[in-house]
C-alpha cells in the first residue's frame, strides 16, 4: 500500500533523477557541438551517416553557437558537455586561453596531406573557410566596388549593418575602418563614418536577423559571407556577392577536441570524417554551400577564387589582438548607434 511517506520518497527520487547530468555517452558515440541552422542541418545529413558507415560511431549533435560552446565548457569546469567544438577564430582564441582544448595530434588525422597549408595546427583543424565581402540586390542597386561605396548613395540608404557581435561583422567593420585610415586595432574611423550616415542607413540589426531583413527588402546591401549569399540565392532572392576592391576577408571555422572529453578517439574519427573528400564534397553542394578545405574537392563556380591556395592572398585578422579590444568596441558601437 502507498503511504504518504512512500509517495513523497518516490516523488523526490523522480525529481532528483531529472536533476542529474545526462548519463555518460553510450559506446561507439561522440557528442559534437554544432552551429544551429545550416551547419546543424548539413552535418546531420552528411557527417552523421558517413561516420556511422565508416566507423560505426553515432554522433550526437548539440546545437550551440561558438560563444555558447565556450560559455558552457567554461561553466562545466573540466567536464565538457560535448567532445568536439566547432569555433570561429575569436572564440577559438578565448577557448585556447581558457585551456578548454586538448592538444590535437595530427598523426591521428588521415586527411592531413589533403589540406592546404596552415589549416591544421596544434589545437585543431580548419574544416571550413568563410569568405566575407559585400552582398547586394542587383535589381535595386548597382554593384558596389568596395567598402567606401557603402557610405555613399545609392548604397548608404539601402545599407544593413551589424556590429561587433559576430566574426563576420567584426572583420567587416575592421576593413571599413582601414579604408578610412584605421587598422586592425583601431576601428574608430569606421564608427565616425557610420555615425555621419546613420540617419540614412536602412537597418542596424542582430546578425542572425540580417538574411531575413535582406529577403524582405528592408535593406539591399549587407556585409556577409558567400555561404549566406548562396543560400539566399537558392531560395530565389536577388543577391550577388562582391569581393571588395581592397580584398575579400577570410577566416576558418575549426574543430577542436574538448579537454576532458569522454570519447577522445571517436572525436578524432569525427574530425577526420568531416575533412574527408566525401563529406567536404557533399557540404559544398546546395543547399549547404560550404567552402571546402579538402584539395581533392573542386570549388563551386560562384566563389570569387579559383582554388584554395588563392585564399592565402585574402585578408586575415589576428584575433589574439582583436579579442581584448572587442568588449570596448561593442560598448562603443552601442553608444554611437543608440537612438
Amino acid at each position, binding site marked *: 500500500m502507498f503511504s*504518504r511517506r512512500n509517495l*513523497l520518497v518516490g*516523488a*523526490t527520487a523522480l*525529481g532528483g533523477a531529472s*536533476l542529474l547530468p545526462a548519463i555518460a555517452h553510450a559506446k561507439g558515440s561522440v557528442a559534437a557541438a554544432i552551429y544551429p541552422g545550416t551547419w546543424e542541418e548539413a552535418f546531420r545529413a552528411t557527417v552523421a551517416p558517413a561516420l556511422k558507415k565508416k566507423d560505426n560511431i553515432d554522433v550526437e549533435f548539440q546545437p550551440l*553557437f561558438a*560563444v*555558447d560552446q*565556450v*560559455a558552457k565548457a*567554461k561553466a562545466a569546469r573540466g567536464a565538457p558537455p560535448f567532445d568536439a567544438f566547432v569555433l570561429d577564430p575569436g572564440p577559438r582564441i*578565448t577557448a585556447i586561453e581558457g585551456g578548454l582544448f586538448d592538444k590535437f595530434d595530427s598523426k591521428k588525422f588521415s586527411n592531413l596531406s589533403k589540406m592546404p597549408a596552415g589549416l591544421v595546427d596544434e589545437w585543431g583543424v580548419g574544416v571550413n573557410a568563410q569568405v566575407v565581402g559585400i552582398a547586394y540586390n542587383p535589381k535595386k542597386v548597382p554593384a558596389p566596388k568596395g567598402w567606401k561605396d557603402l557610405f555613399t548613395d545609392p548604397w548608404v540608404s539601402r545599407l544593413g549593418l*551589424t*556590429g*561587433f*557581435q559576430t566574426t563576420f561583422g567584426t572583420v567587416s567593420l575592421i576593413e571599413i575602418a582601414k579604408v578610412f585610415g584605421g587598422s586592425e586595432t583601431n576601428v574608430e574611423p569606421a564608427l565616425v563614418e557610420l555615425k555621419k550616415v546613420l540617419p540614412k542607413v*536602412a*537597418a*542596424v*540589426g*542582430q546578425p*542572425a*536577423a540580417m538574411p*531575413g*531583413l535582406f529577403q*524582405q*527588402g*528592408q535593406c539591399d546591401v549587407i556585409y556577409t559571407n558567400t555561404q549566406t549569399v548562396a543560400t539566399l540565392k537558392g531560395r530565389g532572392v536577388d543577391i550577388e556577392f562582391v569581393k571588395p576592391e581592397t580584398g575579400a576577408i577570410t577566416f576558418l571555422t575549426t574543430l577542436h577536441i574538448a579537454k576532458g572529453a569522454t570519447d577522445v578517439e571517436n572525436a578524432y574519427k569525427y574530425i577526420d570524417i568531416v575533412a574527408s573528400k566525401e563529406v567536404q564534397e557533399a557540404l559544398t553542394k546546395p543547399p549547404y554551400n560550404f567552402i571546402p578545405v579538402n584539395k581533392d574537392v573542386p570549388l563551386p563556380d560562384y566563389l570569387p577564387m579559383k582554388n584554395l591556395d588563392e585564399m592565402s592572398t585574402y585578408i586575415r585578422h589576428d584575433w589574439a589582438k582583436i579579442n581584448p579590444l*572587442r*568588449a570596448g568596441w*561593442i560598448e562603443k558601437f*552601442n*553608444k554611437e*548607434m*543608440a*537612438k
Partner: protein
Amino acid sequence: MRKLAEWQLALPLALAFISIFLAPLLLLVGVSFFNDDKISQPGFGQWIKFFGDPFSYKVIADTMLLGVKTVAATILVGYPLALVYLDASPRVQRVLIFIIVLPLLLSVVVRTFAWIVVLGREGVINQLLMSLGIISEPLKLLQTELGLVISLTQIEMPLMLLPLISVMSRLDPNLRDASAALGASRWRTLFTVIVPLSMPGLVAGCLLVFASSTTAFISQTVIGGVRLIYLPLLIWQQSLVVFNWPFAAVISISLLVSVLTVVSALSWFGRKSGGYVHG
C-alpha cells in the same frame, strides 16, 4: 501531525526551487562583486562601471518605458476585447479564447519573423498603404519603437487577457443590471462598476505583460534592431559575446531590481484599489 505532512509534500518543489532558482540567483549576486572577467579579484568595480555611466541609466529608463508603453497598449486593445468576450455567447467565447491564446502556441521565432514580414519596408502594412495611395514612400516601422510596441502588444496580449477574462467572468451580472436600473449610463457602469471590480485581473495582466515585454530579448533585438538598446541586449552581449560575467551579472541584477520595483508598485496599487472596492 497533519500540518507537518502537508509541509513535507511541498518539499520537492521547495528543494527544486532552492537548487535551480535561489542558488543561481545568489551565485549571480556573488559573481557581480568581482572586478575582472576571470572572476578572481573581488571588488565593486563592475557596479561602479555600470552606475558611473550615464548610458546605463538611459538604457534602464528605455527598458522600463518600453514595458509601460506595451502595458498601456495591451490595456487599450485588450480591455475592450475582454468586454466583448464577457457579452459573447459561449460558442463565440470559445473562438475568442482560441484567438487570444494563439500567440502563445506559436514559437517566439515564428511570431517575431512574421512581424518582420508585416512591418517591413516591403511588408504587408506598407504595401497596403501604398496601393491605397495613402503614402508614396514606405513608412519606417521595422526597427522603430512604434513597430516594436505594436508587435509586443500582439505577442503579450494573452498575458493581459487571460487573467482579465478569468476575473471578469466571475463578476456578478446582476451588478451591471443594478447599475443600469439605478440610472447609470453604460460608460458610468463601466468606470464605476466593471473597471474597479476587474482591477485584480487588470493588475495581474499588467504585471505579466510588463515583466515579459521588458525581458523579451528576441523580439526586442530582431524587431527593434540594435539601435534600440534595452537591458537584455546588454546582458547577452556581456555574457555571451564578451564573456564578462561579473558585468553581465550587474546588468542582470539591475534588470531584476528595476522590473521588481515596478511590479511591486503595481501590485501595491492593485491591493489598494482592491481595498477601495471592497472596503
